[in-house]
């Protein structure tokens, strides 16, 4: 059985601008030891999906109005706040983007990691310290016996994010959610950190949920990819198929819009318009207005979820055309130019 099973999740936000269907029917599952990437632009609902799993959504403006979240056989939506507190930081941990805001500047690292251990495992002081040092060692902080008494400002940016990593693995979680965890890091530090996450995954049999806007992270770290747009997963596939045979025009366009280090494109494909969000109501496909392949049907009726291959779905009327590789002939001429040069 899958470790995490999300089924038809709907999280709505009420704000002055009106109702935002931030997460609008999201389903996926994640096995132990596997990595899933939730990729999308701002407002696509990727972070809100992660926060719904942890029930850290901004109440009362946000509300989970539908669907189910099953983690390790338990229905998370039926848990009391007290039971959820046991799960958060214990069985499910999260790493956020900015280590400076996830750490408290006035407490030592020992206190901040130890707090998590104490809350979840009730160890005696001495054992607690050992657990703290052990988790620092795990994330590759040199001389953990000494550094354990240091404060966040005494660490460099990369080391600070490692400390955040140490907090998250201190209680041996089963699932680690990384919400843009390396976005704020420099390239060389990011490479080290991703390598570390990989080795932790192997050692602890962790399941990873990567929330990102960067196809590079997905390519490097993930087994499966869910592409989100306006609160929906519009394409789901394993990582290789996502890159080699995308079946949704949005995925295809995005891949052609990113300049690569390995070759120089003459011209990038630029998706027109701005990302849609859950504020808008779409009678048809939310990507319709920006899509180079749209037909009349796309404007008026919701696209079905098409299975183009085993484990590969796309929510598009023309999924089969895109999957078959006919896309460049039927409307993305610029994109083709960008790719082959």
């Amino acid at each position, binding site marked *: 059985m899958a470790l995490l099973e999300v089924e038809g999740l709907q999280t709505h936000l009420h704000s002055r601008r009106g109702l935002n269907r931030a997460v609008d029917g999201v389903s996926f599952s994640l096995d132990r030891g596997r990595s899933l990437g939730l990729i999308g632009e701002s407002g696509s609902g990727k972070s809100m999906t992660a926060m719904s799993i942890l029930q850290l959504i901004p109440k009362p403006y946000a509300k989970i109005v539908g669907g189910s979240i099953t983690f390790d056989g338990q229905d998370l939506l039926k848990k009391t706040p007290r039971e959820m507190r046991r799960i958060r930081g214990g069985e499910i941990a999260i790493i956020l983007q900015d280590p400076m805001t996830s750490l408290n500047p006035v407490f030592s690292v020992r206190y901040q990691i130890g707090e998590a251990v104490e809350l979840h495992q009730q160890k005696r002081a001495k054992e607690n310290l050992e657990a703290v040092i052990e988790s620092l060692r795990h994330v590759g902080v040199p001389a953990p016996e000494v550094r354990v008494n240091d404060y966040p400002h005494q660490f460099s*940016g990369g080391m600070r994010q490692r400390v955040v990593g140490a907090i998250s693995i201190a209680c041996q979680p089963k699932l680690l959610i990384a919400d843009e965890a390396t976005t704020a890091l*420099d390239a060389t530090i*990011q*490479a080290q950190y991703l390598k570390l996450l990989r080795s932790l995954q192997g050692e602890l049999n962790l399941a990873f949920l990567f929330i990102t806007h960067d196809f590079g992270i997905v*390519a490097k770290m993930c087994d499966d990819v869910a592409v989100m747009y306006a609160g929906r997963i519009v394409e789901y596939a394993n990582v*290789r198929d996502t890159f080699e045979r995308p079946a949704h025009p949005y995925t295809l366009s995005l891949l052609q819009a990113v*300049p*690569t280090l390995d070759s120089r494109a003459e011209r990038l494909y*630029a998706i027109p318009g*701005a990302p849609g969000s859950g504020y808008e109501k779409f009678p048809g496909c939310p990507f319709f207005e920006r899509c180079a392949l749209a037909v009349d049907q796309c404007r008026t009726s919701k696209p079905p979820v098409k299975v183009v291959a085993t484990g590969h779905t796309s929510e598009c009327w023309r999924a089969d055309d895109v999957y078959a590789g006919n896309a460049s002939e039927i409307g993305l001429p610029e994109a083709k130019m960008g790719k082959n040069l």
Partner: protein
Amino acid sequence: MAAKSGKSKSDYVPLIQVEDLHVHFQVSRGSIFNRERLTLRAVDGVSFDVTHAQTFSIVGESGCGKTTTARTVLNLEKPVAGRVLWEGQDITDLSEEQKKRYRSAVQAVFQDPYSSMNPRIRILDFITEPLLLNARLSNAERRERAQEALTQVGLRAADIDNFPHEFSGGQRQRVAIARALASAPNMIVLDEPVSSLDVSIRAQIMNLLKDLQQNQGYSYTFIAHHLGTVRYMSDWVGVMYLGSMMELSVSEDLFKNPLHPYTRALFSAALPDQPDVEREEILLEGDVAAATDIPNGCRLHPRCPFAKPECSQVKPEWKEVAPRHWTACHLF
């Protein structure tokens, strides 16, 4: 010392020449009773040229001095040594009249289109503010220039009386570009102009910048950390580390044949564009040294996997090791 891009045509004077630039800051450390004065060498010997109608890019990690270099070119920081030449003339000894001209000739677009705009000011005023330097223009003429600039960046002239919050992030960045264009500049300094934008919007802005360059002949000084973006945008690329230029070349030469260990490490750390891409792995040890305490010899030597004994003693010379390809490293 200076990397003279396009020096072969001996009478050619690049638009901007940066010569052996040093920008230092005084910082203090410690408690108020035991204060230590330190010199932070943010830019420590940087030379490059920005040629007409071309893009010179500076890449490097945070704290390498790329933004300080750009700010010095914009005449917002004073160098302690070295100089910035504008069409052959030192920008620190321009007459008042020339200074005004320089300020309209060299414009800037910054990273965050949210914080670079005053939310209470209509974009008409945002765009025309730099035009106030030119006292001869009437209000109507300014408005016309602003509308023209707006249409050039793909917005509607009718948007001119809107407030910033009525625009999305990508549109705001277009407005920021329009402001730069309104002064009819020769060069625009672009400091991470796309990194805060959504992935699908980045390509729009990059293509817009390229089109403007092609049609109007602007020069760009482009600062970015995303290497794919740099390769797409640049004619020339300089790689900075800890205040100093490590390597400089024609963009495609640099990406196809990086020489300096730092450049190679930077490239090897870049995220793959496809799954199963394995890059040459060059890991730098430890962290970047503090700019208040730059290592002797080559500033990379404590982290460099190829360091030799002389690297910690002797500062490597800036050499042209291949045609139009300069680097400072004892391996070459």
